[in-house]
């Protein structure tokens, strides 16, 4: 097991040197599973062999990077979260002149577009600037296109309805043979940018930060760092939305937030 750990840490060092992506502080078990997954698929017997392969094979390197950044996301994922946003957060945002929202770890952008639709329906889209960031550039490109596979659209429609959507979901997209493309006006105020939560700093002050199902892959220390980054990036009374399996509890910053919805993991920074 110790040797395996060594192999993993060497692989992650190599990965960091080669790509600049720092997974050294990620949850080791999770990383190990992703590595083994890749090894199974590509039929590579040992982790060291995989390390060697990624040094000389850029394609494999990129595949591994994609494996590491788990991009599971849906539109209106956990509809109750979006319903809570709509009911609890939006009325407070109405008071702001300009709204800044950060989707950290936006993956392929489903949640960003969901948020844009929500804001559009609440009449806030025009005065909102959304920053959608991810460390993985290829998923960002996908996010920028705002086109999602047709097969998922029925489920997304159900999510949208459950989340309290007020219109017909279909008025936001147009279909072709395999994708539903969301209307460009939804992304007019979205800035897509690469940002690595592990290595990069805060870049603005935000009224809302959404970072869902990202932190669970991080080690506790790294989670604390990222929470600190979020705290520093939040405006006073700004909101933090986490994934349903993540919580602020037990983190040192917990006393600095008040809980808006414990079940939906929505918190507000105290003054």
């Amino acid at each position: 097991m110790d040797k395996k750990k060594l192999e993993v840490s060497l692989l992650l060092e190599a990965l960091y040197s080669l790509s600049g992506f720092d997974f050294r502080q990620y949850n080791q078990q999770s990383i190990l599973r992703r590595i083994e997954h890749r090894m199974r698929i590509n039929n590579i017997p040992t982790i060291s062999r995989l390390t060697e392969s990624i040094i000389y094979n850029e394609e494999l390197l990129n595949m591994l990077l994609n494996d590491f950044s788990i991009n599971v996301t849906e539109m209106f994922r956990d509809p109750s979260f979006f319903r809570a946003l709509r009911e609890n957060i939006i009325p407070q945002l109405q008071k702001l002149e300009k709204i800044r929202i950060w989707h950290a770890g936006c993956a392929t952008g489903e949640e960003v577009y969901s948020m844009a639709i929500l804001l559009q329906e609440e009449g806030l889209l025009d005065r909102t600037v959304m920053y959608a960031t991810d460390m993985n550039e290829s998923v960002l490109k996908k996010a920028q296109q705002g086109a999602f596979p047709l097969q998922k659209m029925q489920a997304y429609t159900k999510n949208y309805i459950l989340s309290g959507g007020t219109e017909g979901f279909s008025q936001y997209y147009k279909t072709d043979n395999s994708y539903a493309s969301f209307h460009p006006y939804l992304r007019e105020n979205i800035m897509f940018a690469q940002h690595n939560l592990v290595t990069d700093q805060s870049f603005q002050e935000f009224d809302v930060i959404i970072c869902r199902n990202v932190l669970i892959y991080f080690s506790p220390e790294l989670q604390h760092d990222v929470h600190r980054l979020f705290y520093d990036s939040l405006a006073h009374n700004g909101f933090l939305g986490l994934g349903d399996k993540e919580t602020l509890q037990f983190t040192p910053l917990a006393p600095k937030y008040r809980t808006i919805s414990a079940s939906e993991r929505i918190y507000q920074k105290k003054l």
Partner: protein
Amino acid sequence: MNKKRKIGIGFKITSGYIILILCLVVSAVVLNNQITSLQQERNAIIKYDSSMRVMSNNLERKIVNLESSLHRYLITNNEKYLDKYNDEVATWEANYEELNNLVNNYSTGENQLAPIYNSINNWVNNIGQPLLNAIIREDSDQINTLFNGELSSVAISEVQQNFTAFRTTETENIQQHVSLLNDRNADLTYGLFAILSLIAIITIVIFTMISRNIAGSIDEVTEAIEDMNKTDGKNRKRIVAKTNDEVRDLVDATNMLLATMENRQWFQRNLAEIVTAYQGVHSLDELGEVLLNSLTTRTQSVYGAFYIQDVRNTNQFNKIAAFAETGDDVGRQSFMVGQGFVGQSVKEKRVLSYENKENSFHYLETALGNIPISNGIIVPVFFGNDVIAVLELASLKKYNEHHRALIKEVVVHLGVTINSIIGRMEVIRLLNESQAMTEELQVQSEELQTQSEELKMQTEELTTINERLEERTRDAETKTHALEKAQIELKESAEQLRQSSNYKSEFLANMSHELRTPLNSILILSEMLAENHDNRLSDDDLEYAKVIHDSGEDLLNLINDILDLSKVEAGKMDLWFREMDVYEIPQHVHNLFSPIAKQKDLDLNVDVAQNMVEIFHTDVKRFHQILNNLLSNALKFTEQGSVNVKVELAQVTPTMKQISDTWLSISVTDTGIGIPKDKQQLVFESFQQADGATVRKYGGTGLGLSICREVVKLLGGWITLRSTEGEGSTFTVCLPSLPDGNISTLISEQEVAFTDASPALPVPVTPPKTIFDEKHILIVDDDYRNIYALRQALEQKGVHVLEATNGLECLNILQTATRVDAVLMDIMMPEMDGYETMQRIRYDLQLTELPIIALTAKAMKQDRDRAFEVGASDYISKPLNLDQLFSVLTVWLTSRERLKNG
């Protein structure tokens, strides 16, 4: 405190009262004496006055009686009067002496009685006695002389005068004496007031002194006691007693109270501070640190060490914190129970302190040298009955009572704290463990979800593939059947076709002949007529003849076009591939179209690209036909501007290369009216122009572009159109160079493409197999116009449309129809409305997965919400937007992939 002989407050007050009473008594006695003496004097005066008057009057009357007795004796010669006279002569002197004594006793002054005596004596001796003698001797002369003469009465009145004078003098004396007494009385009254005032002043002075003495001290005490609450207990001033009485006791007691209070407050404050300090502490190390820091400074200790019972070996105590003013680490790392002084303390479970004045156990290193420490205290910390920790402190000075009390009190609380910290540390450790495990579980569940989603997707794909395979198998079976049937039919229809083709060809040949023959006559004759050889025709007639000729020619062209088209469609167009000089194209164009261009004042440019192949293989006649057609169209629909022809080599894609290495691209661009986007497809259809108005304005059969398209197809190429309404159009023809004329491998399916303003790749005209193909959609609406419109739109996409005008019909269809892929459901309907229908579909028919798209009016939000409640899959608002409708249907006709919430 100075315990001198003390004079109590009671004593002071009693003395005061006694002094007061004494004063009063003295003054009362003095006054009484005074008043009594005054009274006596006054009584004496009164007594004297009355006695004096009585006596003097008696004496005076006696004298008068003497004379009268003598007179009566003389007259009556009665012995009785003589006796009386003698008696009185014998007693007057005694009466006088009596009066004289009285006066002498009373007054000290000159006796005024002497003249009286003398005058009485004078009368008695000089008058009375001779007279008596005369009477006895009966000497009348004498009697007359003495008696009748004035001598006796003068003497008597002298006596009376003397008496009057005496009384007057005495009365004056008495008056004088009385007024003297009055003066003394007044003096006495003043004296009385004076004494009262004096006593009052003395009283005030005494009581002021006493009260000031008592109240002042009590005020100070009160102030000090009040201060106890105000000040924080530090440097409180002491009260100084000025007297030596109960107040001094009170002051002393208060000062003691102050001292006790200060000590207690110091104790409680420090205890509270220490306890507060280690309240937020989460670890034992931190606790030890805090405890030692706070205790050592408060007890002026220089060394301190804190030991906690080992978790495993309960007989061992380990040092977790140490304090030394020097900053060094002090104390041994651990000790066993019973080992040394400290171990003994644990064993005996009691506080040990040591004082070692001679042989110091430790030296404190300072800059000045080593200073011996001689005082220490070892305190075991209990939890329940067990010692769980030990605290040792050492000082240069002896610990006083407060220090000891503080240390002991802190230690009393410490046991519980240590225990709770150990508990808390354990809880935190377990919490961290469980949190780590929870997080691990969460990650795993997330990953499992990912994997399950991947699996689901794969399953979905497999299912889809499977379905397709099954479908294909079914199709294949059906096709086999159909094929067999079709083969037979084919044979029959082939026969029929050949026959009908023959008929058609024959018919066309006949028609052309039959039509051309009379037309030729008309053309020739009308031309002849128009020449007007005999000049018999009027101008009007000439005009008519010209019109007849032109119409005839138009008709002929039309017939030729129809023939061409039918030939192409029947596959009877004969093609003759030969060499063509590309550089002849400009000449050809100019020859034919310059005149018209000039006439319409349009620029006509033909541009052949450089590096062009010279020789191009195609059917030159047909090529020209295409070019002419496009150019005449361009010139026809352009009012001003230019018409440009561009000839260049086309980009050859791999598919195109299979046909030929050389492809020619000829584009005709005009600045004419353009073609609206929705009409761009239609212009290639037979007999179609952009709209009726165009026909009326520009004429033409509308067959030209259809023929072009067909001919281009025959030549192995395709034609594309790019146009913006009002700005002009560009028709581009792509043709391969085919030296051997082999067109069997042509991409026969490549058809004319339509693109909008964007320069995209040619898209085949016939729509690709879309998601809508062969789909069955049920429209439920009570308005036949809506049904009609929807049916039109959907059928264009290849959808089979079923219709129902109310809910009941809808349910019937769903129960009987073999296949329904989606339902478009209106809400307001007679018989059974949309809500009930949807509910029944979901619950009665159990069609839970059937996509139902509700159509509601936009404004009705509650309609929309209710539609979702009763089971609508999605909704679009009326009036319908076709794009949106198709988008929705695309989504709901796509085989779905379920998400975790789906």
